[in-house]
């Protein structure tokens, strides 16, 4: 499943690689070709650092730190898709998890609509759990194998819409399923009865259940077959247009990121080495690391 094959597949949406922005795929509000700083950002990350202590020796004393994320700043404008690329281990997942408080940042600030969220306590962060959601890379592990689809989709509903009764929740779950291209009678099935692509759709439906504004997609397609990758990406784009979502789209494949994003952050060893609009990155990469990444993508 090379990047080349994928490019061929998504070319249906993209007749010319070095295009002008008017012929872009639907769902991409590519009205701005400049930096996203112009609109008020939905999310502002400033000087974010995540250091993991490295223990060593007999007494397991702290020997040093892994700088998984080292002084990273970026903005995410509302309604846009910001791509985050970088090779394995560059700290992409760590950033994504900081934003949803799975990891506490070592330093730095995260502002959501101007409000600081990075230092909130677990309880005070709770309201943001309804606004920020996450889609995971591995569709085989991101669904509890012991829960039916109805239970999987019902869980976020019962947390954030406690007034819903069971029938209400079931209706809403069925609605979510059809929104991601599955059938309502899939509700009673269990995750192992679905293909990888279908599971990823369930993962997307679960993220949508709380009616979020912002979704972090952590390599949502890299575990999938190339042909399936394109359909999931198109689904994400359609949903974005329909629901006005904002994405932080993490991938290590520049071809996908370039296709879906308005704006691209290139990460290497915990630092953002280049950030620019998707076109600029593709047309005139500045940083040598970006050039290296681009070389992996066949130009057409």
């Amino acid at each position, binding site marked *: 499943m090379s990047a080349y094959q994928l490019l061929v597949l998504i070319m249906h949406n993209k007749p010319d690689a070095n295009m002008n922005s008017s012929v872009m795929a639907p769902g991409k509000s590519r009205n701005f070709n400049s930096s996203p700083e112009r609109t008020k950002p939905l999310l502002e990350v400033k000087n974010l650092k995540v250091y993991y202590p490295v223990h060593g020796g007999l007494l397991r004393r702290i020997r040093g730190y892994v700088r998984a994320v080292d002084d990273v700043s970026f903005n995410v404008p509302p309604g846009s898709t910001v791509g985050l690329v970088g090779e394995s281990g560059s700290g992409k997942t760590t950033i994504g998890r900081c934003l949803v408080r799975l990891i506490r940042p070592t330093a730095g600030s995260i502002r959501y609509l101007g409000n600081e969220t990075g230092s909130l306590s677990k309880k005070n962060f709770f309201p943001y759990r309804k606004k920020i*959601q996450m889609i995971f890379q591995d569709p085989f592990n991101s669904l*509890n194998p*012991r*829960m039916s689809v109805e239970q999987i989709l019902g*869980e*976020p509903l019962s947390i*954030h819409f406690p007034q819903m009764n069971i029938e209400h929740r079931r209706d809403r779950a069925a609605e979510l399923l059809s929104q991601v291209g599955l059938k309502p009678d899939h509700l009673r099935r269990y995750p192992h009865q679905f293909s990888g692509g279908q599971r990823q759709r369930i993962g997307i439906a*679960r993220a949508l259940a709380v009616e979020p504004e912002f979704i972090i997609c952590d390599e949502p397609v890299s575990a999938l077959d190339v042909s399936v990758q394109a359909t999931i990406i198109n689904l994400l784009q359609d949903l974005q247009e329909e629901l006005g979502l904002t994405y932080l789209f993490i991938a290590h494949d520049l071809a996908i990121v370039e296709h879906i994003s308005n704006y691209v952050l290139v990460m290497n060893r915990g630092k953002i080495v280049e950030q620019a609009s998707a076109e600029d990155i593709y047309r005139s990469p500045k940083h040598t690391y970006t050039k290296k990444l681009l070389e992996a993508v066949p130009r057409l």
Partner: protein
Amino acid sequence: MIRHLFKEIARRPLGVVCLTILGILYLCTIFSQFLAPYLPTDQDLNNAYHPPTRILMVEWRPHVQVYEQVDPSAARYEPVEGATVPVSFFSSGAQYRLWGIIPADIRLFQVEEPHRIYLLGSDGTGRDVFSRLLYGAQVSLSIGFIGICITMTLGFIVGGVAGYFGGRVDFAAMRLVEFIIAVPSLYLLIALRGALAEYFEPEQMYLVIVIILSLIGWAGAARIIRGMALSLRQRPFVLAAEVMGQSSFRILFKHFLPNLASYLLVAATLSIPAYILAEAALSFLGLGIQEPGTSWGLMLQQAQELKVFTLNLWWLLLPGAAIFITVITFNVLGDVLRDIVDPRQQMVKR
């Protein structure tokens, strides 16, 4: 999941055999008051060390052979030619309370006093070994069950919490676990028994043993569950639950528990024998169940006399056979369950 397990067991002959044996054992235990012809304390000093009575068919109805004691010092009994008593089925006898609640007096089979039916012989005071085995099973078979329920609950809570929260909670929990595991369990058993004994009546010894065994047993379970919880903790579906704002308590019970359930079941099945054996050991040492209660271990202890061997009173060793069968069956069933639950080990074996 349970239905699936049963289906899988039904496909394995060994599993079916084990389930059947255990099913019969537990059914007998539940209805022991109805099945046993005598109370476990019913003595008959004229019939000490009576061998198992012969059952004859007279006019198509089962009768019990009548015996005569020929040598009281050697506990020798000779059948009296032609003298038999009929066995009566479902007739009423001495009152008992079924499960301690329902008053009843019907028993499966009896013979008329003063004759006695000893299916499996009698002990030194003429008590019926068969009846005592049934009543003893109530203790010996339930202790493993109740003990394992407490152990697994404790193990899951401690291990799950340690694995889920990690950090200091984990550290504290694991040091405690290591401490308990490091102390040899027989010493701990005897020490705890000594410490607890003064707070309980002898009749409550059952309770004491359950508490002691569970206090010792949870540590091993907690350590393994903690390891599994640590890896579950990083599974994306648990992260997803956290991202959607699920409470830690619900994550433990909705996400951890169902995914650990099959492990818990296998571990429980495999460790029930340890409880049965521990109860037997305690009772055998005179530290467990006390008269007038019965348990298999206590019965074995009472069969320690040299007479049992010199006079070949083999029926007094039957509690040992009962323990053996139960322990083996649980172990084999545990293995079958593990094969079902963890197919990886199965592949290695084949």
